[in-house]
């Protein structure tokens, strides 16, 4: 599959007044303590969003009824410096391991209580990739679903 559509990665940097180790810990093991309640993908209402803190571990949601929805999988695990996860969400904002974009988060110590956190979400073009032949509902693939989510999001804000 040729992929000539490329979309610039989303890059974010924030400064956190704590150690890199603590920042890493909160971001990963502590995911459920801070992940915004409205940033859900799976079944609602959502009970928790969790990360299995190891290489190959999942980032997943648990709904009130116990349903689990996988968001991604850890593909690089180097605490407390960085981790990379596949983001197995398609442009319909649905779980789909065939279209994974990628999220890398780096924790750079700038002092005992100062950490720069850099996040890069990249390879979006994979989200728009044509679905494999054996898979699914063709015309519903593509950008509109995500744009729809975007619109709902903006209007809610």
């Amino acid at each position, binding site marked *: 599959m040729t992929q000539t559509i490329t979309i610039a990665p989303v890059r974010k940097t924030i400064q956190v007044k704590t150690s890199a180790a603590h920042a890493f810990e909160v971001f990963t093991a502590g995911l459920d303590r801070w992940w915004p309640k409205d940033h859900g993908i799976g079944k609602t209402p959502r009970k928790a969003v969790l990360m299995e803190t190891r290489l190959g571990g999942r980032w997943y949601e648990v709904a009130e009824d116990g349903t689990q929805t996988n968001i991604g999988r850890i593909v690089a695990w180097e605490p407390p410096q960085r981790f990379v996860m596949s983001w197995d969400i398609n442009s319909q904002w649905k779980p789909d391991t065939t279209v994974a974009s990628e999220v890398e988060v780096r924790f750079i110590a700038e002092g005992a209580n100062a950490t720069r956190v850099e996040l890069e979400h990249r390879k979006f073009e994979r989200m728009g990739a044509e679905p494999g032949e054996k898979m699914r509902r063709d015309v519903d693939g593509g950008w509109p679903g*995500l*744009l729809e989510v975007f619109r709902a999001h903006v209007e809610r804000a």
Partner: protein
Amino acid sequence: MAYGNTLSALADPTRRRVFERLKDGPHAVADIARGLPVSRPAVSQHLKVLKEAGLVADRPEGTRRVYYIDPQGLGALRKWLDQFWDEALAAFQAEAERSAQGGGKDTQGRKHDK
């Protein structure tokens, strides 16, 4: 407004197929129409809408016009993710700093003060 245009432009399944035909590079109308179950004028019409929505652009190439995906038009996706991560990271920062300072409020039994 731009988002509204993008949304409505891509809401039509045929138009989406026209758009997706451009994923592997620029094409003339005749190329795009080939294999699609719609007439060439219909394809031209779809391209016009996509162009107005900022999703495709065109340029002359010899005696014909070729159409290609305008990367700017896909900015809507990027912009949404941009905001998505802004919000997430702001929440992360607040929690990381709150729990680092300790003492404060409930940390759900998870203290990480070092």
